């Protein structure tokens, strides 16, 4: 167990729901986790399982209506963000906690200069002159390795290439040296060479600033290469949490197991052409009409009667490896 002071973020029983016309939508259901200083926590899970909403909940940016955080606590460096008033929350956003959004391409204001957007973030939280803030902005751009940062600071987003825009986003997110950085699929839709550049950059900066990092991604390869700990979400719930080594070595939840199995083999290892991939049969249930028991049960090969009736508790299966499955112990053997 780590020292308490080491913990940057402590999320307890977070619950975010959407009130939609098709019903109550439990996008995040009772999710807890912690992030330590300098640590990278990865969140993986099926598309639509609530990863982005979890991230937005931390910043209290869930669109309301229809969304609402209905329970739990988000403690950042000792303060519960959910009880703060809006002004105090504003002082924390962008300052202690920053986010790189899922779609960096559309997340920059198209009619503001890159530099000004960073300057704005800086001046909102630090009492600096325009000149000083501008210097910091240029410095940040240099830090994310944008060539000719001074000139680029005066340009508009559309004048930058996609890769540069993402770096600008990162520069902006890190400008106030936040205690916590949330990166929501920062590299989807990029080819692997650029992806490698960007990830390396984030990790470097994280190391330098000691920032806690929450990394949301589909790419299990990226998870394996960057994270220390992983949580796996399914249908709004955390179904498994473990250190990255433990998870990849022996996943304890059948869904995680299925995910792992679906990963196409690394090209160099010489798979035969036309090899079928393993897939998880069935589809994700609608978050509105979740089954009473385990949400994954209808697709699970190991499902037993109990799975349909009772939701399994998140239990520790040794060494901080949490999993919510009645048959977690058997997962490794059966598959």
């Amino acid at each position: 167990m780590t020292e308490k002071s080491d913990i940057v973020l402590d999320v307890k029983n977070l619950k975010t729901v959407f009130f939609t016309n098709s019903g109550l939508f439990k996008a995040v259901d009772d999710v807890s986790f912690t992030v330590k200083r300098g640590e990278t926590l990865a969140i993986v899970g099926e598309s639509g399982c609530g990863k982005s909403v979890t991230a937005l909940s931390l910043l209290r940016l869930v669109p309301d209506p229809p969304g609402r955080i209905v329970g739990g606590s988000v403690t950042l460096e000792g303060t519960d963000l959910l009880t703060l008033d809006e002004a105090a929350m504003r002082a924390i956003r962008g300052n202690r906690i920053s986010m790189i959004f899922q779609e960096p391409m559309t997340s920059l204001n198209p009619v503001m200069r890159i530099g000004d957007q960073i300057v704005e973030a800086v001046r909102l939280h630090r009492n600096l002159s325009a000149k000083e803030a501008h210097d910091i902005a240029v410095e940040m751009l240099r830090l994310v390795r944008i060539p000719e940062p001074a000139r680029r600071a005066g340009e508009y987003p559309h004048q930058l290439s996609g890769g540069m825009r993402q770096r600008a986003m990162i520069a902006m997110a890190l400008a106030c040296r936040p205690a916590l950085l949330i990166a929501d699929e920062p590299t989807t839709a990029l080819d692997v060479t650029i992806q490698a550049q960007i990830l390396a950059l984030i990790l470097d900066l994280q190391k330098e600033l000691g920032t806690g990092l929450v990394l949301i991604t589909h790419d299990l390869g990226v998870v394996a290469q960057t994270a220390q700990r992983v949580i796996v979400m399914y249908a709004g719930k955390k179904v498994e949490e473990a250190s990255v080594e433990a998870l990849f070595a022996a996943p304890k939840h059948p869904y995680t197991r299925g995910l792992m199995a679906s990963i196409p083999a690394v090209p160099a290892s010489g798979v035969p052409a036309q090899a079928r991939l393993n897939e998880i049969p069935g589809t994700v249930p609608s978050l509105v009409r979740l089954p009473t028991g385990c949400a994954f049960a209808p697709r699970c090969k190991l499902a037993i009667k109990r799975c349909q009736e009772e939701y399994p508790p998140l239990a520790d299966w040794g060494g901080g490896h949490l999993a919510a499955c009645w048959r977690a112990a058997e997962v490794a053997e059966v598959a």
Partner: protein
Amino acid sequence: MTEALLEVTDLTKHYPVRAGVLRRQVGTVHAVDGVSFALGTGETLGLVGESGCGKSTVARSVLRLVEPTSGQIRLRGEDITHLSKAELRPHRRSMQIVFQDPFASLNPRMTAGDIVGEPIAVHGLASGKALEARVAKLFEQVGLRPDQMRNFPHQFSGGQRQRICIARALALEPRLIVCDEPVSALDVSIQAQVINLLIDLQRQHGFSYLFIAHDLAVVAHISHRVAVMYLGRIVEIADKDELFRNPRHPYTQALLASVPIANPHAKKIAPLVDGDVPSPVNPPSGCAFHTRCRFAMERCKTERPALVDAGAGHQVACLLNEGTGRPNAIP
């Protein structure tokens, strides 16, 4: 190799950049610059490359959805490069495309059933009950429930939308399906479902695929041969095994090395190339990759390497080691 279904020779697509009173052309986007390849019946050719290197343009040119600037496209031996829209219409039955962005390529105001049934109706192949039955069968084929025919695109998940696109492409039972990044936005489990479906269909019907993707692992799974593009040109093309085992072009090597491996004990991420992709409006002189290449030599800045045979059906465009592209040592 089987008889060639599709032959693309020297395909070039330049988008003009216009300006001025008379909208004179002041520049050119060299989106595709002399691309040649062939695709046999029942074969899958993987096409990989950076974002913006011209993959989609190749795909759309093949179907004559964009008019190529020059070059030739032959379908089953017939030159379709210059056919008129009307003459082309019968050929549309034998080639179909699955677009890069599944959501955008579905008309938000049509039901899934209508979307899938439309090609059949347009070509007058069936109507009424017969049409409905055919669409229902297609839905089942791609793993959708026929009762979902009445739903609108926004009611489907990403993976399901992708399958609607595939069902639409299959509706005409084409010989050739161009798949433009059909899985890039999906998570691995859904991605696996789609890939498996494509493989199954190919086995059953002998379809040919031109398969475009970022993810090399996916390409490795589905393709027989793989072509690597960089800035409008094919820089390397080879049988899949050969390519992955023995990448010759420095860009291919960088790509392969950058793939994150889903194993926390494996080598950590370390970018092999730096810098941004150059603009296709002003492509660098000589070898377009020289601005980012670790092995760039003086020659590379002026001389443009041609795609040459490097043995074992392996073609590569690199000046390194007399055009074999093989570096002396991989660091």
